[in-house]
Structure formats: C-alpha cells, structure tokens
C-alpha cells in the first residue's frame, strides 16, 4: 500500500512541478513582452543575435537539408516507381519540405545550437552577478538580453527555413534527375502543377513560431539558473530538451490551426 501511495504521490509531485514551471514560464513571457514593447529598441543587439544564430546554424542547416532532400527523393522514387509515377517525386518532396521537414529540422538545429547557447550565456551571467550589474545600472536584463534573442530567433528561423527548402529541393533534383534518371522536363512540370505558394508560407510561418518558442525557452532557462557552474549546465540541458520537444509538440497544433486559416 505504502508503495502505491509513494508512487502516486511521486506522479502528483511531478505534475505539480510541471504546472508551477509553466506558470513561471508564462510570467516570464509576459515580462519579455512588457519590456519588448518599451523603448529603447536595441537594433544592434538584435542584429548581433541574428548574425549569431545564422552563423551557428547555417552550415548544419545546409548540410542536413541537402541530404534530407536527397534521401526523401530516393525513398519516394523507390515507392512510386512501381506505379510509373516517378515524375511526381519533385512536388512530393517539395511539399513535404515546405510544410514539415524544413521548419521542423531547422527548429531542431536552432534549438540544439542556439537555444542552448542562450541559456548558457544568460545563466553564466546570472551566477557571476552580471545581471545584477545591469540591474544596478538601471538596465532591465530581460530587455537587454531576452528581447533581442527572442526577436532574433523569430526572424532568423524563417530565413533558415527558406534556405532549408531551397537546398533540400536542390538535393532532390540532383538525386531525382541525375542519379535516378527522372525526366527533367516532367520533374519541373509536375513541380509547378502541384506546388503552391501557400505551402511555402505555411512552412515559413511555422518556422517563425518555432523561433519564437525556442528563443523564449532558451532565455527562460538562462534566467532560471541557480547556483554556480553546475546550474548553468543544467539550464543548458533543459533548454535543448524542452526546445526540441516544444518544436515537435507545437508543430501539430500550429499545423492544424494553419490548416483552418490558410
């Protein structure tokens, strides 16, 4: 009996913990919105963040997108060849890339590379009293550190996602036309028949939403850091895990919402 009780209590405690965390996170988002709406808007810091995010992620996004497009083209081709529809590979890959692969993969890369870096930077500033130093100078740390990172991630993600789409389609074309021998004219014919601007728009909007969430989660875990270098490591880890999980989970909800309005 006591065993069952301890077990149930354990579950209850972790649910309560999660809810409390969500509450603090909402409060944090509110603070960031408040300070984001307050002057001054630090354009230089925003530019620095966008450069940082692009710099950290561009190579990996380029590499993963090339091979995602290539392998997707290959698998589609192998599946569809039997029914003689191989020219459809172009649009199938392009639409999958636009709607899902590009925003989600770019999101995972940015969560892993940049969400973690945000938590690490802000966390180590916190444990070395640099946040207090800002505060004492009359500068709000949320405004100075969180706002440019959140906006930077929100704006950078669609750019990275767009690059992912372009390079991914290049990989698909390379493998489809030049390795598997799909007729090039038909490949582009079908592409223009089925591909819609709305598909691309859906991906870019989702990418922006993911960027926003990754930025919020990364900076939140930085501000939440307690106690020394160990705390910074923990916060960094949490930022990556929750960033990635949030990308995958929110993907479903954002997609079903966009399906209604687009």
């Amino acid at each position, binding site marked *: 009996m006591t065993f069952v009780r301890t077990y149930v209590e354990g579950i209850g405690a972790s649910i309560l913990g999660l809810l409390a965390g969500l509450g603090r996170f909402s409060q944090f988002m509110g603070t960031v919105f408040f300070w984001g709406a307050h002057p001054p808007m630090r354009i230089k810091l925003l530019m620095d963040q966008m450069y940082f995010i692009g710099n950290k992620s561009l190579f990996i996004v380029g590499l993963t997108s090339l091979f995602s497009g290539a392998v997707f083209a290959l698998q589609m081709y192998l599946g569809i060849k039997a029914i003689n529809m191989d020219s459809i590979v172009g649009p199938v890959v392009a639409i999958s890339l636009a709607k899902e692969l590009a925003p989600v993969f770019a999101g995972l890369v940015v969560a892993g590379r940049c969400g973690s870096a945000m938590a690490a930077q802000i966390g180590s500033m916190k444990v070395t*009293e640099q946040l207090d130093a800002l505060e004492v*100078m*009359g*500068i709000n740390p949320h405004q100075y550190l969180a706002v440019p990172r959140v906006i930077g991630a929100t704006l950078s993600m669609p750019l990275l996602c767009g690059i992912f789409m372009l390079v991914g389609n290049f990989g698909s074309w390379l493998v489809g036309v030049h390795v598997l021998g799909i007729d090039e004219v038909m490949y582009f014919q079908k592409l223009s028949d089925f591909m819609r601007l709305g598909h691309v728009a859906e991906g870019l909007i989702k990418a922006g939403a993911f960027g926003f969430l990754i930025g919020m989660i990364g900076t939140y875990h930085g501000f939440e850091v307690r106690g020394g270098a160990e705390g910074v490591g923990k916060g960094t880890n949490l930022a990556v895990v929750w960033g990635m999980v949030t990308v995958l989970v929110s993907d479903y909800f954002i997609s079903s919402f966009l399906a209604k309005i687009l």
Partner: protein
Amino acid sequence: MADAITFTNVSKIYGDATVLNNLTFGIPEGQITTILGFSGAGKSTLMKHILGLTHPTSGKITSLGTDMETLDELGLREFRRNFGMVFQYAALFDFLTAFENVAFPLREFTKLKESEIKAKVSELMQAVELVPESWQRLPSELSGGMRKRVGLARALALEPRIMLYDEPTSGLDPISTQVVSDLIVDTAKQNAQRKLTSLVISHDVRASLRISDNIMFLEKGKIVEYSTVQGFKNSNNPVIRRFLEL
C-alpha cells in the same frame, strides 16, 4: 553633516526569518562608511535595500533626500544612476573588453561622441591605474585584482554620488588588497569636492579600519556598534573585541 542615506525603523522579514531588525541609522555624506559583520548578518540584504532591488517589510529608506517608496519602476531605474556599484567578483560583462566594459554606461546613458568616450575611458583607466596593454583584453584574460579595477572604473563612469563596494578585498592577495583599499580611499579623495559617499561591505577588519571614517557592525540584522573608527577600536562590546582580535 547631512546624511546621504537614512534608514528609519527598517525591517525585512523573509518567511519567519527577520533579516533586518528595526534598523535606524544614517550614512554621512562625503565619507567612507564600512558595514562589517559575519556571514549571514544581513549586509548584502541591506545594500539591496539601498538600491531599491528589494523593499523593506516595514520602515522608510531615503537616499539623497528621496524616499525610495515614492519611485515607480522606471523612476527607480533612473534613480539608480546616482549609484556606482563594485561587485564582489567585479561582474564585468564577459562579452566585452575591459575598455568596452568601462565605456558601456557611457554608451547607454550619455550622448558622448566616440572621441569623447575614448578620452573619458582613458581617464578612468588611468585613475584606477590600469595600464593600456590590458584595455583590449576580455575579463577572462585579466587577474582578479585587475578585474576589480575595471569594475571600479565602470562604476565611476557616470560620476555617481554614492559608491557601493561589496566585499572589495575578499579573494585578493595581500598586495592586491592593499592596492584596492588604496583605490577606494583615492577615489573618495579625488571626488571629495562633489561629496562622493562611499559605503563598503566587508568582513576584512584590518582593511576596514585602515580605509573607513565610520564602521557599523551588524549581527543578525541588528546594529551592535556604529561609530567612528576610533570609537570602534575602543569599543568595550565583547562581540566587537572578539571580532577585532581575529
């Protein structure tokens, strides 16, 4: 002499712990006052109250004649520019060079031209005796003593009226302790005309006796002794005597 900071019946209670217990005192303008006390006595809490980073459970605090409770969030931020704070481990921004750390408040809060900022930072760096070779280094490439000096220069950049030092000499070797102590005194002297007030938190008795005009001894949120250095040295209070013999 006027007081730069006054506390009137100030208490701070966290849960069931009374961290500041009904404190009433004034910090005289233009002098160096040190708050001494063992770990956990409430020294840092007291300093946070002065900056308006935390608010008293009861009582009244004024700085430079302004009642802190009358200021709203944005007013408080403005008001904090009257203070310069030197942190225990300097708290330099690790993404900026020594030079840029000192220039930071000037860039944020003044409309000085680049050449004027350069001149002002150079002047501050010279005042804290930091050689030009180290100006372009990142904080991680500076020694603890050098970092403290950069922190001091940064705190002085906006010509504050009150300087706050949190454990300025802890973690430093005897020579650096001497240098930093001298800098606190020199800073006070150099800014004597505009009546710079210095408030130091410390548990370094010897350094405190050397640099201070007044010493307050805090224990468990209460003032055990508050007097001039001479009065402190001659105190009959057994707690103080024990502390002096450390």
